[in-house]
């Protein structure tokens, strides 16, 4: 847990600072969204699979996903796939993935 705390994205820190159930719900929603990534990037984004997501910052993951959405990364499976999520969902799952080291 120690390692987790010092790398947390500000957004998540703020969420953790909030009290009680509301905080748990915010984190949990991001976690469930992020779990859509695990089939191809491993549980908690830690592989085995395609690119490892654990260890990246929230902004890095979010930026990559937006680039897939924009078509800048070609028309592969991730470009198509990324279209399925709203901006808020991408932010929430990126923030959760950033807690994984």
């Amino acid at each position, binding site marked *: 847990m120690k390692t987790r705390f010092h790398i947390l994205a500000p957004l998540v820190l703020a969420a953790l600072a909030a009290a009680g159930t509301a905080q748990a719900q915010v984190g*949990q929603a991001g976690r469930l969204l992020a779990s859509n990534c695990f089939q191809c990037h*491993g549980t908690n984004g830690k592989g085995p699979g395609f690119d490892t997501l654990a260890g990246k910052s929230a902004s890095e993951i979010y930026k990559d996903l937006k680039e897939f959405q924009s078509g800048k990364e070609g028309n592969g499976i991730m470009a198509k796939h990324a279209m*399925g999520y709203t901006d808020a969902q991408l932010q929430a799952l990126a923030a959760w993935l950033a807690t994984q080291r």
Partner: protein
Amino acid sequence: MDRRIFLSSAAAGLVGSALTACGGGGSEPALDLAGSPRRRPGTTTTVVTPPVTPKSRVIVIGGGMGGATVAKYLRLWGDAISVTLVERMPTYTSNIMSSMVLTGQRSMSSLSFNYDTLRSKYGITTVFGDVVAIDPVAVKVTLANGTTLTADRIVMAPGISFDAVPGLGASDKMPHAWQAGPQTTLLANQLKALPNKGVVVLTIPKTPYRCPPGPYERACLIADWLKVKKPGSRLIVLDANPGIVTEVDNFTNAFMGLHGGVIEYRANAEVTSVDPATMSLMTTAGTVRGDVINMIPRQRAGTLVATAGLNNATEGRFAGVNVLSYASTVAGAEKIHIIGDASATTQPKAGHIANQEAKVCADAISRILSGGAPDPAPVTNSACYSTITMTQASWLTAVFQYDAATSAMKGVAAASGASTGWDQDSFEEMGTWFKSLMGDSFA
């Protein structure tokens, strides 16, 4: 809070008592609730001293893609729930990639997965046996050996079962090979024994069936293999549906173009009866004979769903569920959740999406058992690869968002579709995807 009071009295602080609550007979192996204090068998010594936090209990029935994943994630996402996985077989054979056993590209052992990691890493208890009855109201499971197990929730992941094929009886001459196992080996051997210039027939049942692109990719794979190994042979594809049901562009191009000299595709050809003695299929489009027949029958939920009276959807074939939690929609059976191919949803019946349904279900159950409500806006996804040749593949993906207006998962149009064509890169990615998906489900 009622639940806690009930549990604390039932569990009384020791696993030995929890066993009694589960109705385990004295001769049954101890239900090892890993991570919690326990007694050593044959002693009265309590191994761990800290006070016991009573756990909620969930029984998972069926250890396939959905069942293994829900068991894993119920434990990964919190220590407040103990999980018992009940499964018939000590190992699971993956349906995904199993058509490549037919072409000799994969071994059965490469498709075999066990429950060791679920036990050792996540503290899941496994019970190998046949479930014969489920009481949805008492939340109770009865095994063939008379053991009964009770829990706060039951998750059923029994997969599919097949409609009886009139005339087939117990004959092994027309295997479906649609549940990977002995039938896969049987069909592989029958194909191996096919003479040159032989006729292979593959039948596709009416939707909904397990793995929508599956029969079409198998047809492509067999056609490619026939070209090399059985020159002059043909493959007749009899589709009970009015046309190719998914990835239409790729499969149409492959059937008409690439494999046009081998595949003969007939739509609206539903098998009505068969005669194994003459290797004939009577269909709505006439009688068809083959040297090897891969007869894939129409499907319904695993038999336990009907046994428990939960087959209230798709004309009694599948289980209606609330897709926020996968709880049954049968009145009084709300504590029974059904995931994967056995449930009736707008999502395809396939391993990747069963894995994601399992995570939504695990998250919902953990919220419910701690006094909360399921996530009101779950998202699920699917990705898969189809073998178009023995070395090239296409891909298909979909994302589903919860739609409150219809209380259903709704496919996002922009995120649902297939590759334009097929290539070797996708074939290689298919291997990476398979390894990752199986790891996320079983390890």
